[in-house]
């Protein structure tokens, strides 16, 4: 109570200082929630890639690559180290690549040859898994339910074709949330029509893929397998777990650093404003500090008093910043839900971390002013007008 009264002795100044911290923590929470979402997406990718190799031909675009033949992918099964090579088609859900933040929604078609070897945990919120016979049927990720109106049993339109939804996935906070899964042959129909008309006559539609997913035999190191595939045919781009880390995780890591960097800069500004406020407050209360010391307050008690006040400023700023940040995130996510584009994730560690950090910032910023107050000579402090 005494601490709170002391902080609000100068109401406007307390309000402005707390606002400074609030803005910093707000930035940290909102941008941190963005980074958390991306981190989860990458973690999901890392999890998915940990025991397999993906293969594309020619220039990789990140999402699949140039058309390649199913035969060529299947031929990899001739290698001793390969258990199954499944052919896939991955293309964006939207025909036009719209400018979205984060990852675009995807259509993935697969021949499901690797289904029994898949270790990536996927469970169903509703409905069932796809089987090889399910032509004209799809399962969809949780972020797409609202966007496509895709409840189980509904018919949805994907790239101008109608599909029946047979299953909805549980949220994974990763790529599957934004993906429509279908049989390879359905995806081949769609992919075929995206290709330029002049090359279509030379292509066998049923032999079309954009890439393959290679499941190694037990005991095979997927990274070594990827190297071996690339060495065998240098038209093939094979990506194992390590390379995925190097490519994707490294780039998103930089993004995460930028995001936190911006937030930290605003917090440094907030911290400086706490130092300023506490220094002013100590100066104004020089005489009071003299009285307290005359009454027998030890240096430690004076330090605790002022650190308590600066820590309280930090706590208030932290809670307000977290509150405003959480509201903003939920509004933006609600707004993004319709387009399946929820780019923020407020994790527990972010909630706790931001408030703890705000208190720490307040206390750290109060250290010098508090130390200065404690070191005052009581006689001189008492003479201060």
């Amino acid at each position: 109570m005494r601490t709170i009264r002391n902080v609000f002795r100068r109401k406007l100044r307390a309000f402005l200082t707390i606002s400074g911290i609030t803005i910093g923590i707000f930035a940290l929470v909102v941008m941190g929630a963005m980074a958390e979402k991306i981190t989860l997406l990458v973690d999901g990718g890392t999890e998915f890639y940990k025991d397999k190799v993906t293969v594309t031909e020619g220039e990789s675009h990140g999402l699949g690559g140039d058309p390649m033949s199913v035969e060529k992918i299947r031929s990899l099964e001739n290698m001793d180290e390969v258990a199954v090579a499944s052919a896939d088609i991955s293309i964006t859900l939207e025909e036009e690549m719209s400018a979205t933040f984060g990852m675009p929604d995807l259509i993935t078609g697969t021949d499901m040859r690797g289904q029994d070897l898949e270790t990536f945990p996927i469970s169903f919120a509703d409905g069932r898994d796809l089987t090889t016979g399910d032509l004209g049927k799809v399962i969809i990720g949780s972020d797409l339910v609202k966007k496509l109106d895709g409840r189980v049993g509904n018919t949805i339109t994907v790239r101008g074709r109608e599909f029946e939804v047979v299953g909805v996935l549980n949220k994974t906070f990763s790529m599957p949330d934004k993906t429509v899964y279908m049989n390879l042959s359905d995806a081949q129909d769609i992919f075929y029509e995206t290709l330029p008309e002049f090359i279509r006559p030379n292509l066998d539609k049923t032999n079309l893929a954009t890439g393959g997913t290679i499941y190694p035999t037990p005991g095979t190191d997927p990274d070594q397998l990827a190297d071996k595939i690339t060495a065998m045919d240098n038209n093939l781009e094979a990506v194992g777990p390590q390379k995925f880390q190097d490519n994707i995780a490294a780039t998103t890591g930089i993004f995460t650093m930028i995001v936190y960097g911006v937030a930290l800069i605003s917090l440094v500004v907030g911290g400086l404003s706490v130092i300023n406020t506490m220094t002013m407050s100590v100066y104004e209360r020089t005489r009071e500090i003299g009285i307290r010391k005359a009454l027998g307050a030890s240096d430690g008690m004076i330090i605790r008093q002022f650190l308590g006040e600066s820590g309280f400023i930090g706590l208030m700023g932290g809670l307000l910043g977290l509150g405003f940040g959480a509201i903003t995130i939920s509004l933006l996510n609600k707004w993004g839900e319709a387009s399946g584009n929820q780019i923020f994730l407020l994790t527990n560690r972010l909630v706790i971390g931001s408030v703890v950090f705000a208190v720490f910032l307040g206390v750290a910023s109060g250290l010098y002013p508090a130390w200065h107050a404690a070191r005052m000579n009581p006689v001189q402090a008492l003479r201060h007008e």
Partner: protein
Amino acid sequence: MVILTANNLHKRYQLGKNNFVHALRGASLEVVKGEMVAIMGPSGSGKSTIMHLMGCLDRPDEGHVQLSGRRVDNLSGRELTKIRGKEVGFIFQGFNLIPTLSAADNVSLAAEYAGTSRRKARDAADAALADVGMGERLNHKPSELSGGEQQRVAIARALVNDPRIVLGDEPTGDLDTETSDEIIEMMRKINEDNDTTFVLVTHNPEISDACDRVIHMRDGQVTDS
């Protein structure tokens, strides 16, 4: 029994780079337990400085200070802080209450600094305030109290830890004559009832008249006690 001894005290303060004030030049005095003593002298005679040294707020450059037979001028800052909290009570000119705290909190703060638990400190504060006739105004802030009332709170604060000695620096300095007389009478009564030792630095002849003894100072020395 001598409770306080100042022996040949010297103190210089530095104001500017080459600007020193020689506030005390070999001042000595003794105070006996249960006495009420006034220290008088013109401005700059060193009477406030000697009070600060006796109250363990500062250390002399030369000379000794003894409180209850124990030498205190060579103690560490930490030990001086403890003595200030437990063995000395201060009454300042201009009351010097903490403006954000109620009367009761101002008094209990002194008890808390001396190591009393918050609850016991509050009980002691209530009792000390009742003793000075402020039992009805416990929760008033200093700004809601008159000058005389504020000085009563300050006296309660000086007495709450039952100190060996109470030091006052112009305790009636900011009060009108009538209120000043009340405060002097109150200190005298506490002195007589509880055998509390008072040393009061003052310009006010009414205080010196009420005291057992007057110590005169001039130019940093005691001229007459």
